[in-house]
């Protein structure tokens, strides 16, 4: 990994520049005279930039490589996408042209070229263990997109590889990082401090009528607020994907995700041992990304992340950019915000809900009873031509 300037020096230099800017005018320092930043950007490689990827649709990519001024006008991160790969070479080349990076021929071609990796796709998730392996083994920090894995075996294989090679990983999504998740977590802590008990939780999630790609946003949102002490989970729905595919015979038109918590404990705030149920409706087009109402022994408390209106920049900034920021935070600081165990546990809860739906008709299933080798389906099991792994 390239040597970066000392972070403290970087911040100090930036602060000095900022101070100077406040006492100067634009006329005194025309653009051509501005000091060129000396901070070296983190070179980032991307896997999966086509359909189902946040690198597509002008979501993450323009906030990292600001090549679409009408979408995201300024450089905002210390990252730069320098390389990309996609299962479809033309898609990769198009992305490379648009964001001024280099498309590589093979998924493993970026190992010696980048400081960090973003595994950005969704449809490729079933192949993350193979696609990430070269990078995890090389110790390159990786963001691995949700839902991380379709079996605990796959999840463990990535975690074990990461642990063995001291590789940092992040598996998150935007609803784990939206302000409302943090505020709600704080509020739960306050409730515990006040000695109040959570009686039940209702929630809504803009899921696009599917579970693994957008339903999981709602799951991560709930877990970020309520913690991981989930005893049972169920997905009650008439399908798990929003279209009919080889593996999805019945498109979802309604669904709820239900979690039965053993209780909740927030260090420094308090502990509740009384179980409660959180139920989340999986919706589409209801005007918000996620919301939650917490019923407690003193009444209730509401929070909702509404759709962002106005400039497109606002939507990217308030909904998606915190996730990008979280990636850089890990890449730059070398610290994981969510532990390996956290990632394993939330993947287990995700899979338990899936199993409930597929094999138990939506009955509550104990999280601890999920077999390690149980595998959930992905919507397009032929998405990747596995000959690339030969």
């Amino acid at each position, binding site marked *: 990994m390239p040597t970066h300037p000392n972070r403290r020096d970087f911040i100090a230099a930036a602060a000095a520049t900022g101070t100077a800017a406040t006492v100067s005018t634009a006329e005194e320092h025309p653009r051509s005279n501005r000091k060129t930043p000396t901070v070296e950007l983190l070179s980032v490689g991307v896997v999966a930039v086509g359909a189902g990827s946040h690198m597509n649709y002008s979501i993450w990519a323009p906030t990292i490589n600001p090549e679409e001024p009408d979408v995201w006008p300024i450089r905002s991160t210390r990252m730069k996408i320098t390389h990309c790969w996609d299962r479809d070479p033309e898609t990769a080349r198009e992305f490379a042209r648009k964001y001024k990076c280099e498309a590589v021929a093979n998924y493993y071609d970026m190992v010696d070229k980048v400081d960090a990796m973003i595994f950005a796709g969704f449809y490729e998730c079933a192949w993350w263990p193979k696609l990430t392996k070269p990078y995890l083994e090389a110790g390159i920090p990786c963001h691995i997109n949700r839902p991380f894995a379709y079996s605990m075996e796959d999840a463990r294989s990535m975690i074990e590889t990461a642990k063995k090679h001291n590789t940092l990983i992040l598996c998150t999504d935007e609803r784990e990082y939206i302000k409302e998740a943090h505020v709600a977590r704080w509020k739960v802590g306050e409730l515990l401090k006040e000695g109040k008990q959570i*009686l039940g939780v209702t929630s809504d999630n803009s899921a696009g009528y599917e579970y693994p790609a957008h339903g999981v946003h709602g799951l991560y949102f709930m877990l970020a607020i309520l913690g991981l002490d989930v005893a049972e989970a169920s997905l009650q729905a008439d399908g798990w994907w929003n279209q009919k595919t080889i593996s999805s015979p019945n498109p979802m038109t309604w669904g*709820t995700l239900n979690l039965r918590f053993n209780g909740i404990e927030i260090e420094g705030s308090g502990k509740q041992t009384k179980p409660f*149920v959180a*139920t989340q409706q999986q919706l589409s087009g*209801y005007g918000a990304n996620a919301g939650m109402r917490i019923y407690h022994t*003193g009444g*209730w408390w509401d929070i909702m992340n509404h759709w962002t209106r106005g400039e497109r920049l606002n939507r990217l900034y308030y909904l998606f950019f915190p996730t990008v920021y979280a990636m850089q935070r890990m890449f730059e600081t070398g610290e994981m915000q969510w532990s390996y165990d956290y990632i394993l546990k939330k993947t287990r809860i995700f899979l338990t809900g899936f199993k409930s739906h597929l094999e138990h008709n939506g009955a*509550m299933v104990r999280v601890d009873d999920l077999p390690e080798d149980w595998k959930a389906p992905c919507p397009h099991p032929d998405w990747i031509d596995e000959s690339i792994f030969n």
Partner: protein
Amino acid sequence: MPDDYQHDPHDIVSSHNRHRRMFLKTSALAGALALNNGLAASPEASERSGNSKLRIGALCVGDFSFWSYSWGDILSPRGVAVNREALGTGLLDMEITHVWDVDKAKAREFADKVGAEPVDRYDGMVGKVDGVAFGGFYEVPWQHILARPYIEAGIPTYLSRPFAYSLRDIEDILDCAAKHGTPIMATDIYEHLYGVTTLKKRIRTIGEIQCVHSTCLTHEYAALFHTPYMLQAIFGHDVGKVAVVTDDPNSSTYLMGTYLFNGDPEQKPFLCTSTMTPDGDLYSMDVTGSEGIESSRLPQFAEWRDDLLVHHTPMLVAMQKTFEGTMYEPLDNIRKKNEIFLTGFYSAVERSGAPVDVGTVPPDWRAVPARPDWIDPALLKRQ
């Protein structure tokens, strides 16, 4: 009930109330047809002898009963408090004249407070009253037996929620009511709240319904989980699936019900959740539509008097109309409500909370009574 039981209604018709009894009997056939359509049996139904109020038989007045909790305070003729504080005025055209409870001492105690006469047997009011109301919860598993003499006698009957503990039982009751043209009413108190009609009107402006969340101040499913009935009063009875997640339907640590309403050509299927919140509001309900949200809630009352008037009286008004001969709703609605209740119970205890299709619960499957030994079967023999 003994197979050889033969009931001659004329034996029990006193000269005093013969006119009313005869009306109910002669209208039985027409009533059987009309009741299922929710039609009033006849305007004559309100006709009664003398200037007295409707004579009401109060059944199941002891533990966990609306009679001893609120109805007594509302109908108490002399302003004597039955529970906390009577309204102090005769609010409705009903007078409690006879009382029965499985516990004779409780029956006597209640009767003394309201100036009524206790009867020894559960069917001991036949021929003496213009209507009967079952106020208790623990007796509901036996309600189909307890109510039968009255329904057979054409005496308008109010059935306590959740009405019956098996489909077979509720169908027995409904068949009996249809056969004898007896007006029956089986509602939950929340079906009568003003929030029902208010929400029904207001949700017309929020576009297509996306989802509904509701809460209910309860700690168990069978007696106090009122919002499922309220949801049906608002959105109708076309419920396709029910799921109830709880550790114990009769004493819940946690409780969450989900109801899939099938929708129609202009409304996609949508889910209503009901969460137990044994603290705070009596109910809350939020209806999210494609173009807005409508909410309703009923905070706990600061004054018992307000509780009686706002919370409990509306159902008694409907009950009185039933006793006057006007069916509150079609028999099919009662069956559907009971079936939806049983489907939720079945989901909780037989399917670990999985959604169960309404219409698939076996007719003889029985929900678990809160007090399975509440009634001595010997008490149920008819004379």
